[in-house]
């Protein structure tokens, strides 16, 4: 039985093809989320990896912020549910998911059985999200993927005191003008994200095993800062960015086998 999960996020579209709810067959990812082009390009990448075609799919489930406008799926489901399912698929003893996406941050707690027990979301504020990192990378004229490596050279992370992304932008510019080393600034930016998300996580309650999902999970500087902040180990899997899409595919499988 083949199920396709599509996660249309605010900045990235992801898709995963699964067999019998247990095996990942192919994946696709395209930066550029909402709208029709992002998901379709991600799907093209996925189809290029497999001999299966759209006609072979038994069920397609879409999730993420773009889910309501996507045509061609058999159903839609919230991304929190999907991140919980996808995370638990990768880490069977998972109890807490920290999802930092392009536009928001979410914390999901799971019971021992894997049932979702609580969740919190930040509201319309870029602090503690991937967008915050995007803005800061832009000021520093760096690629978002370079932040991680740059932060690793920091000796004394700078303090970013502003909560608001707009004010933090001014603060970083001032610190740059005052000669603060770039690695220290980048490390401070990652600490800032961890501080916001850590506070959100404590609201929901943090039980090990904890993992990160979403694009920001790839940034080890943020991940390690969060580990220090929450005083717990945070698991990482290279598929972290696909947890939503995996969850959607699993959700479709559950519907078919219910």
């Amino acid at each position, binding site marked *: 039985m083949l199920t396709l999960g599509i996660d249309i996020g605010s900045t990235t579209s992801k898709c995963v093809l699964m067999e019998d709810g247990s095996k990942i067959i192919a994946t696709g990812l395209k930066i550029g989320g909402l709208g029709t082009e992002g998901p379709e390009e991600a799907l093209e990448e996925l189809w290029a990896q497999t001999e299966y075609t759209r006609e072979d799919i038994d069920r397609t489930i879409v999730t993420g912020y773009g889910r309501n406008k996507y045509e061609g799926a058999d159903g839609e489901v919230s991304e929190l549910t999907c991140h919980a399912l996808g995370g638990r698929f990768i880490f069977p003893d998972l109890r807490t998911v920290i999802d930092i996406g392009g536009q928001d941050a979410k914390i999901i707690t799971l019971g021992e059985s894997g049932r979702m027990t*609580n969740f919190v979301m930040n509201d319309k504020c870029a602090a503690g999200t991937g967008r915050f990192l995007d803005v800061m990378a832009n000021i520093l004229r760096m690629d978002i993927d370079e932040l991680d490596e740059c932060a690793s050279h920091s000796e004394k992370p700078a303090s970013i005191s502003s909560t608001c992304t707009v004010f933090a932008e001014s603060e970083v510019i001032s610190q740059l003008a005052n000669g603060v080393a770039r690695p220290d600034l980048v490390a401070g930016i990652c600490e800032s994200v961890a501080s916001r998300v850590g506070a959100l996580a404590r609201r929901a309650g943090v039980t090990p095993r904890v993992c990160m999902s979403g694009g920001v999970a790839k940034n080890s500087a943020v991940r390690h800062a969060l580990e220090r902040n929450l005083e717990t180990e945070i698991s990482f899997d290279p598929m972290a960015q696909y947890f939503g899409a995996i969850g959607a595919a699993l959700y479709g499988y559950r519907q078919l086998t219910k």
Partner: protein
Amino acid sequence: MVQDVLKKFHEAAVSPRAQMDKYMSEGKKVVLTAPVYTPEELIHSMGFVPMGAWGADIELNRSKEYFPAFLCSIVQSILELGINGAYKGASAIVIPSLCDTLKTLGENWKYAVDDIKFIPMTYPQNRKPAYGIAFTKAGYERVIRDLEALGGKYDPAALAESIKVYNAHNAVMRRVDEVLAGHPEITAAERSDIFRSAFFMTKEEHTALVEEFLDELAKTEASGEKLGIVVSGILTDAPQLNKIFDEFGMHIVADDVAAQSRQYRTDVPEGDDPLEALAVKFAEMDNCSVLYNVKKPRVQWIVDTAKARNAKGVVVVMTKFCDPEEFDYVMIKKACEKADLPLALVEVDRQMVHFEQVRTNLETFRDMLSM
């Protein structure tokens, strides 16, 4: 037919201006009543039509001349409507002192809306002791003087009659809340219309319409399987919010909403002095974020009500920057966790156009309750 009566509720709920014009064309004077509690019985007894002024889902512009942009959008939208003439023709507005933002609304109203008289109603924090009741009564006497200046006439016998009218309305609203808990087929939007329309109709008319609705509903059989929830907050009348409740199969089996059931929980007790009795009513009111009570019985009330009505969870609809509600939320959350009662928090305000965050939140909550 049930749907015919629901249509009447909807028409009244979405057209407060038409209701106001109707009453004024009948030669009646309208007095606006701001959130959260005002002595409507008194206003009614002095010959005015009390009409709820809880603002509207509109863009805020002029109100920002008087308020910081982040302040409670309910209060800001009331002032915005006042400035842009939506309440034109009203004789006065009674604004209580029940939260810090409401206090500033009254003061700003005097300067921003000069054709509608501001009548303050200052309530005591400690409302239950004898001195608190005396303070409330003195506040009502001030309202009487202001309404007399507008041509109203105070008569204790008339107040006693108005109290009967309002107590009867309270009773029918409590009944409809209870009956609707057993009727999942009545949508959240329709339930909202029933409560919202009460602000824009005379209580005599609304009582009659609710009774007609209950009679019609009794002829039908309850149908549909939905997730029972208790909703708590100041205001939950946004059409998009109720649409989401309905879309995700959520059935409001009880509410702790200031603009809904909180208004009708307490009757005026019987007594020789109706004004004193009205003050005692305020002393006896409770279970509300703006009614000071150090023991916070509201928290357990929510848990007990959810259990009594077999709710699967509680949804707190938080009006952004509402301090009293935010203070209580922490205690509500802890109490629900202790009672193993799932809880979701969604934030709303009067300017909200996009409800995507709310939608995702409630969709996930639905999954959490049903998976």
